[in-house]
């Protein structure tokens, strides 16, 4: 097949990398932005569980006394000292992305300190303290942004995970929360995610969709009436439970209103052919990449700008994730065990595999041109875990931040925030929110911004 125009060229280029986009990008911008002509500013938060391998170090920070010892090839940290990045075996997949990433040592959420065990992943994107009298989480960083700018895209945010659902206290399967007690269930089935994103009306035309929405709104009025009358018959404790239901209905009503505003705008047409939407979770590489592809597509078509992705969740004993290392390289133990045993070879390969997948995603963003730069330049991608290498330790997380070069982030270094320079991870969150035009003063336990990263 020969390509004659830019239009076709572009489609082919995309098809080659996994998808075919039917509409040229500028067009997609018009349905997304409406009045707003500025380029989108995006944010992705992703989490891996059970920490990463960091030999010769205490709780994530290289030991000073052992300065002489060579930096380990398989350490999650790409290099030994603060300053310009160099890459070891484990982080090698990120080498081509050097100018778009930074590593941050010594950051953590105070709220997670006491959670312990494997539960601190619950608050990775929220920084909430769940150990007090109220055992509830709080709003997550993506939802803070979605509250401000979510109305500008068809979907305010996209919440993904590999296990799906919400999980429960101390064993969350999602990173996102609307607010206290309202976790957002993560989606984990590629086909379903694809349909929700790109075929929300399941083949109906705009007129039908609109009529349907109108009908649904009137039906919901009746359901609401029924629920309220039921509520009156309940005792106090039970009413609190029913409040969740009422809130759901209200929120569905709001959602209908919102969908109504968007139905006239055409959906982007993407071809699912090269996406491995039926990849099973027993096939980790295809599955994880497919999930990353979906995020990429959602961002690229500007269906949403804020995404969270729980790549792995803690307490994954009952899921296939537990066997990833087994499927990938025949490791004779479950994935969780790696974090406790930390044999160099397996830990290194495991971290390297994870790095490969994440780098794949970052590269796709970087290789997609957008105005005067690329998509990654306007997308902040956080990647980290709530444990360093030590078992059940909840401080000094492994944290990598990528992208956003055109949002004011300066990359290419490893930063250390230790001893006197120690600051909360939430400071990074504040800087990230500022970069995507969300003017917050504080987030969780933040004390300021992370000026070191801002060029």
């Amino acid at each position, binding site marked *: 097949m020969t390509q004659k125009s830019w239009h076709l060229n572009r489609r082919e280029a995309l098809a080659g990398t996994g998808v075919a986009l039917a509409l040229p990008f500028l067009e997609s911008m018009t349905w997304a932005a409406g009045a707003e002509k500025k380029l989108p500013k995006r944010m992705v938060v992703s989490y891996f569980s059970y920490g990463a391998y960091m030999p010769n170090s205490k709780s994530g920070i290289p030991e000073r006394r052992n300065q002489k010892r060579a930096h380990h090839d398989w350490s999650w940290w790409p290099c030994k000292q603060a300053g310009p990045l160099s890459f070891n075996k484990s982080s090698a997949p990120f080498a081509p992305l050097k100018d778009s990433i930074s590593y941050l040592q010594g950051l953590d959420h105070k709220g997670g300190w006491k959670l312990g065990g494997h539960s601190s992943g619950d608050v990775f994107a929220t920084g909430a303290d769940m150990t007090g009298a109220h055992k509830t989480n709080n709003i997550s960083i993506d939802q803070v942004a979605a509250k401000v700018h979510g109305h500008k895209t068809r979907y305010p945010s996209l919440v993904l995970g590999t296990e799906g659902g919400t999980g*429960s206290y101390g*064993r969350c399967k999602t990173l996102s929360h609307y607010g206290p007690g309202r976790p957002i269930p993560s989606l984990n089935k590629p086909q379903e995610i694809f349909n929700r994103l790109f075929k929300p009306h399941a083949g109906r035309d705009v007129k039908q969709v609109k009529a349907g929405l109108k009908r649904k709104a009137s039906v919901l009025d009746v359901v609401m009436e029924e629920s309220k009358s039921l509520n009156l018959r*309940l*005792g106090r404790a039970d009413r609190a439970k*029913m409040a969740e239901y009422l809130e759901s209905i209200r929120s569905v009503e709001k959602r209908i209103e919102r969908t109504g505003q968007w139905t006239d705008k055409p959906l982007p047409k993407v071809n699912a052919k090269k996406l491995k939407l039926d990849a099973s979770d027993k096939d980790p590489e295809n599955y994880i990449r497919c999930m990353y592809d979906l995020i990429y597509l959602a961002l690229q078509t500007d269906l949403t700008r804020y995404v969270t992705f729980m790549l792995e969740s803690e307490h994954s004993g009952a899921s296939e994730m537990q066997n990833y290392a087994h499927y990938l390289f025949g490791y004779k*133990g479950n994935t969780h065990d790696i974090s406790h045993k930390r044999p160099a070879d397996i830990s290194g390969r495991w971290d390297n595999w994870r790095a490969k997948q994440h780098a794949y995603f970052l590269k796709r963003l970087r290789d997609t041109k957008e105005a005067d730069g690329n998509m990654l330049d306007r997308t902040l991608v956080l990647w980290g875990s709530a444990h360093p290498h030590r078992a*059940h330790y*909840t401080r000094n997380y492994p944290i990598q931040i990528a992208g956003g070069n055109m949002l004011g982030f300066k990359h290419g270094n490893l930063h250390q925030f230790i001893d006197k320079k120690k600051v909360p991870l939430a400071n990074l969150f504040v800087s990230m929110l500022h970069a995507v035009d969300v003017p917050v003063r504080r987030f969780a336990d933040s004390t300021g911004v992370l000026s070191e990263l801002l060029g």
Partner: protein
Amino acid sequence: MPRLTQQPANHNQEFMKSGPLNTFLPAFLIFVSAVQADGSAAGSLGFKSRILPFIKVHCFECHGPGKSKGNINLSTLNADFAADGDLKRWELILKKLQRGEMPPAGEKQPTAADRKAVVKWIDTALRRHIKSSRNKGAVPTTRRLTNFEYQNTLRDLLGIELDLAKYLPDDPAKPYRFNNTAQYLLMGREQWARYEGNAIRAMASVIVDPGKPQVYKARREWRAGGRTNNEIAVSRNRRGSPQDGLKITGWPKTGEYRIRIKASAQFPNAMTEMPLRLVMGYPLAGDIGNAPFKPVGTIRLVAGAQPRVYEFRGRIENHPVMPELKNRRGGTRTGRLRVQPANMTITPQNLFDDGTLNDGVDPNTRPKAVVEWIEFEAPVSDVWPPAHHTRILFASPLRKTQPAAYVREVLKRFLTRAFRRPVTDKEIARYEKIYTIYAADAKSMEEAMRRTLAVVLTSPNFLYHITAKDDAHRHFEIASRLSYFLWGSMPDQQLFDLAAKQRLRDPEVMKSQVQRMLKDRRASDFIRNFTSQWLSIAKVKSVPINTDLFPRFLHMIKRGERSGAEVPFRPTIRDDMFDETVAFVAALIAGNADVSNLVDSNFAMLNQRLAAHYGVDGVRGHRLRRVALKPNHRLGGLLTQGSILVGNSTGSAPHPIYRAVWLREAILGEEVKDPPADVPALSDSVGKSAEKAVTIKDLLRQHRRKASCNQCHARLDPWGIPFERYNAIGRYQPKVPRKGVRIPAFNKARHKSLTQYKAQVASLYTVKVDAAAELPHGPKVDGMTELKRHLLKNRRHDIAANVMRRLLSYGLGRDLTYRDRYDVDELLKQSKKNGYRMRDMIVLICRSGLFLGTKR
């Protein structure tokens, strides 16, 4: 504030008299620390003079202002019970003192009289407080259905079995707890939207369109000999054998299918039976092992039987469809770019497994299924429209003459069943309104009714268990609580009738109902759901087994690209182990057995594969059945079942901590805390080299040497160490290989025979396993037999209390709190009289005030 006199003889009465004072004394909340600082604090006479000194002397050293072991600091204990906050801690102190677990052995012990007096003081105050504050601290019992209940309810409400729970997010799970606990069951917009989608799917299947539908048929035949072949072996089938299955490319969107198969089997070597399973979904041949499919059914083929036709029925909606493969332009053009239409394949599988599949036995010595043909037809129905349709849109002249009245009657019937109680005219009117909205632009009554009834299925009255303040439907609430307890589904007509007659509070009626319900097929849903959560046995299916150490445990692919991987698409011995435990608990309940059987029993539920694994002779076939045990089998009870031993191992080695936690949580009913933040890792050697895996116990010994670790581990590890002679795959193994010795896989060429191989492996097992431990607050036990003996002799009551609490918690759908303490005690007292029998326990629970709602 408890006001105690100085006379021990009547301090309880004094205290009780002073009760009402509690209500207006919040201003005097006295903390012990405050008392210490200022001895003049008012009103704390009894506490200050009797209890505090006791606590100071016996507890403060470890749980005081200076040191707070286990995060328990009693210097801030609040003596004002009405303040509620500290009651959990008071209950804990009470338990520890009653059991004599505190102060720990080796510390100075209080006199028996002192201990008794303090126990009595706490007990009386607690009891009184619970009584006087019945309405405070109530936990919600209104909750949404769990996915399990939702699925079953739809089945019974609609009369067809649709897999709809798979579209819902998983319910939150916590090991050893039940997912029907109200607090955990959240609802949100996304969840609601899933219910809505499911409701629409369900109604699309239940209500059919007028007129006869198009019928789809397919058939394939196989012949013996020549180029084709009609036999299915366990593995390695010839090309063109029925293993490829019947591919169908046309089927209705919804409806019941019928699959017929004509089959028999060949049995060499005096074998007598084999299971043949049909599955439908993606084609299974040649795939790497993750093609989605769903079983259609399994038949048992027996020796000597003539070829026979077997018939299966199911819902077409439940089976995964392999989607159409389109060419580049998205068309379906055939020709050079061949296009695969959407399809499903019906595959027969030979599931024969006598536990020797890895032993290099000649495949020709195993049974082969012979399939002559397979036929598919859908939709089928004995009558049209089908019963599930006419149950809702019943045939009546009203429909034509008075459509409005007909709609009202349809709604009334459906709502009554969906809401599980009588409905009011007002409620019906609401749905009539909804019907009118949909009818405005619906093409038929069927279409409008589908949409309307879908709304019913998203109503809180359907999705929630409701405990209303008013007494309007109390008896229907009982009927529902009972049926969701014992069936995990909605009540049947008989229960509805009894509720209408208000008979369910009659103890005799309740007893006969419980017995009837437990005999029903639906009770097995309850037992499976309850057992798997209570004992946390799902893990057995996901622990990665170290196939270097245990080369014969799982059925492995022998040759080719995927050699070394587990043979896919077959139920494995791990599934049997899970089922074994469920069947065991089911047998105890059905037989109304003593709870002691959980620890040790004279029977096990086994099939041939399990029996071969455990080393029990004389069990033939795949069906789990009751097998009498002998002491040399070293089985009996739950503790030695594969589901528990494998699930709580690392897959390479037994894990004493996992097993200890399991024993304490699931059997003894104690709550074991999660490991605290930042404990140093137990550098288990399994990861690096599987061969060294046998040393976890030694590692633990070193771990315990650290004082900070010993605190928790001294109470934990000893419970797991007596399990050590049962290896990671749940087999009795008194000797293990030396460190670093590798167990070879069975290789037919090298080992000649299995006997020879076994002998070689046995010769590698040279190190005796040490399984001796000194139990906390208990004796020294060596191995499983002594552990069981100790549990039966000294902990039978605790085990019964645990089972009672678990059943009650599951039945009520909430965690039990200190408030339920005395109700549980009462139930246990009654249960003890007839020897802690399991079915009677369920009867007692169903008759209790807690369950019937006469007491909250």
